[in-house]
């Protein structure tokens, strides 16, 4: 681990922290355009964060220390996730700390904390949100793990950096299994990021919300951190998807030129991905909560199918 790699790592984290709200703002803007609404400014999430940080925290009487502690943990988990997913370069000193399986664990840890925090005040909506979040979680997590299994079998490694290097920097090979894994991953990331077929990020209608129901009691800096963490999660998932399925453009070493090239590539890929996300969200309707298991079950089965296709088609010489 040299100092240069360490700097590159810090730079990647800083970039994630900066870019994540922008991505959220971009998706919101695209969605507004598609839905014939006048779009909020691109920088709206930053204004929002600033405003929330300025406000006082209004804490419910029944809130325990866990409630105040949870936003920081969730935020920390997302920072770690962004630190180990290669965005610009595969040479990340922190990356050995957690491979893709541990990455799923990080998301799981964040989910447990936010669900517990939701149950902490003891309101009807809080527990409802916590329960639904765990419902989505226990369906999405195995699907994500299976997606990762498929990619890991291709590259014979669970380390994200190695997976990216295998897929991006070796001979060009078509992996049919990745088509299945990619679809499953898309489903999972919609569910995990509280997006339309499963949840609606724009709703405050009690019967339909999941993520929003959990964070109803949060305010001020706590809410800001949670919102930021949600942006970071979207960013992390997008980058993970890009790294697993469109890894071209991620630099292998830590040369300045490579990084300089990687940044615009990353921004372009995220912009396209965000626009696609907005399109999909616009043309789909939110499903009933009990159709969500079906949606995620399909994702899980697609991921397993990807695994099988990988075993059948790609292991024969």
């Amino acid at each position, binding site marked *: 681990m040299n100092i240069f790699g360490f700097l590159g790592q810090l730079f990647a984290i800083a970039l994630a922290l900066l870019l994540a709200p922008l991505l959220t703002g971009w998706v919101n803007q695209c969605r507004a355009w598609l839905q014939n609404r006048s779009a909020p400014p691109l920088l709206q999430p930053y204004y929002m964060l600033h405003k929330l940080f300025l406000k006082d925290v209004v804490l419910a009487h029944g809130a325990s220390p866990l409630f105040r502690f949870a936003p920081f943990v969730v935020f920390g988990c997302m920072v770690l996730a962004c630190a180990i997913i290669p965005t610009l370069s595969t040479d990340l000193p922190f990356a050995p700390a957690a491979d893709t399986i541990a990455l799923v664990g990080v998301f*799981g840890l964040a989910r447990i904390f936010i669900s517990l925090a939701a149950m902490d005040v003891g309101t009807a909506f809080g527990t409802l949100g916590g329960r639904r979040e765990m419902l989505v979680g226990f369906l999405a997590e195995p699907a994500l793990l299976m997606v990762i299994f498929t990619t890991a079998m291709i590259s014979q490694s669970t380390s994200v950096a190695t997976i990216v290097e295998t897929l991006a920097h070796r001979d060009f090979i078509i992996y049919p299994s990745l088509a299945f894994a990619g679809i499953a991953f898309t489903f999972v990331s919609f569910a995990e990021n509280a997006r339309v077929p499963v949840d609606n990020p724009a709703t405050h209608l009690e019967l339909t919300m999941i993520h929003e129901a959990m964070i109803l009691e949060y305010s001020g800096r706590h809410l800001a951190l949670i919102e930021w963490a949600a942006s970071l999660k979207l960013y992390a998932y997008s980058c993970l998807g890009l790294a697993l399925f469109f890894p071209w453009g991620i630099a292998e070493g830590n040369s300045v030129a490579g990084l300089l090239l990687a940044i615009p590539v990353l921004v372009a890929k995220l912009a396209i991905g965000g626009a696609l996300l907005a399109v999909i969200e616009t043309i789909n309707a939110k499903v009933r909560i009990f159709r969500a298991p079906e949606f995620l079950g399909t994702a899980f089965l697609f991921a397993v199918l990807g695994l099988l296709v990988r075993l059948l088609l790609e292991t024969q010489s």
Partner: protein
Amino acid sequence: MPALLPIDVLLIAACAWLAIGLAGLAAPRNLHFISKILFPLGAAVGVLAGLTSLRFLGSGAETAVLAIGLPDLPFHLRLDNLAAVFVLLLGFAAAGISVFAAGYFRKGEGAAPGLMCLQYHFFLASMLLVLLADDAYAFMVAWEGMALSSFFLVTTDHRHAEIRRAGYLYLLIAHIGAIAILLSFGVMTAGSGDYSFAGMRAQALSPFWASAAFLLALAGFGAKAGLLPVHVWLPEAHPAAPSPVSAMMSGVMLKTAIYGLLRVSFDLLGEPLWWWGVVAMSVGLATAVFGVLYSTVQSDMKRLLAYSSIENIGLLAVALGLTLIFHAYRMEALAALSMTALLYHCLAHAGFKSLLFLCTGSVLHATKERSLGKLGGLIHRMPWVAWLALAGVIASAGLPPLSGFVSEWLLLQSFLFSPGLPHPWLNMVVPVAAAVVALVAALAGFAMVKFYGIIFLGQMREEALKDAHDAGPWERAGLLWLAGLTLALGVLPTAVISVIDAATRQLLGTGLADKVREHGWWLLAPISPDRASYAPLVFLAVIAAAVLLGRQLVHRLYHGRLRRSPAWDCGYVFQGPRAQDTAEGFSQPIRRIFEPMFRMERHFPTIRDEKPYYSVKVEDHFWHWLYLPLARAAEWVSRLIIRLQGGRIAIYLLYSFLTLIILLLVARP
């Protein structure tokens, strides 16, 4: 004074436990003497046993012969690395549980404290002997001692009929299991009459008999461990027993069954066949899915944990099956990986499940409630228990950076290499099993959030909970010790693997330790850092840094102002504790999605009801599919036999007479 061998120290420890137990009888009603002196002494002995096996691990086996028991049948004892790993588990878990128990037992509850003390320490000593036994005779004596003492411990509150029933069920299944184990040993002696383990190792069994021995052992030890379908005693016995006893049974006793399985299938039987692994894995998968689904729908906190134990035992059986498959195909490096996962999970589960059971004990003492529907908000009244339970919950949900995750990670890693299996069906089906394992792990998270959220978070569901008090200093010490173990197992995987590797190497001939040590103590990379790596300390450090830095920055750049107000809750006025999810409500999605898996009796309210209510009762399918038919068959058979019982002496004499004549006719030379 000659240096004591580790096995001698362990024998002394066993004797010390027996002596402590007997000392309890000296003053059976003196609670202070028993709880504040004898139980801590027992904990010290546990630490001694743990440290001894820690020192021993990695050295060659030691044997001893005790001239007790029947003439010409002395106890053969042997301490090898496999046993040492489990002695380590027993010693360290017992230390924490005993310290907790010192503060737990109160006046006027159940049996006399002296009697409890005797049973408890006898239980410990017999578990130690099970691990040290080197012949079938000593093993079975210790095994039965363990079953009996734990039976008495389960029925401590024997005044309740349901507890007596739970104890009876436990004893029944324990004995059926013991018979299967005995038969398995019998098969392994291959008619030589030599019941020592060394003799069994020397036998070369035909595949048929070896399979018979393995299946009998799987059934017998499975009954003790709680594998499907002989799991039914577990969710009955655990809630019935006092919490330290549940902790001991779930954390340690179930592991002795896993130890027995490992001993039989890897040590005594020699070469395994690949389909044994498939059997073990299928049973394990079924058990794990069943256990975790049922644990999510329970509304009694100890039953929830009991089902979660079933799930963990299932995962252990999956790891065992995978190891057997790899071992049968001579893929020793991968077998070592999954074996490490297996042993690691044994240790991890002993830590976090004991911790959680002890926490329920504290909650039970503070509130007199076991039902989740009457708890809530205890984090305000019992912060110690609540925060320490959080460690157990995270570990139990298999999340980083605590112990449960490491073993799960190792297990998934070994699954990742299963496509290399040379068998065309296995290499496709086994990776799919990993998908089931992933589902089980995720569902465990659901169960744990329910457990923690309903007990410790939210508003208090009953007024009486306001008087709840936190755990006393002894209980805290016990919980802290176990939480510390859970954390250590979570963040120091390389050190732990180096320790338990001796057992892996003994069973498989190869281990992970050399590879693991290559990359420094902080990075766990069982194959190579390119393939997979996990560094929990870095992991923890990054999260901690983000938390602290984030907090500092926010407070420095903005402010740290805070004020309290009523909860918002979308502006709803009614915010009483009844508005929260009940235990049943929280698991409603699971009941709905996995409806066919449960046998439910539901009552739905109608609009005409004067007092509308909803109730749901979830029962185990196996009762109706397996146990009730069996019980009916047994009754039917007894009704047939009852006809023999005429009650007249003349008829009984006739039976004897006829028997005599038939024997004389048949048994001619």
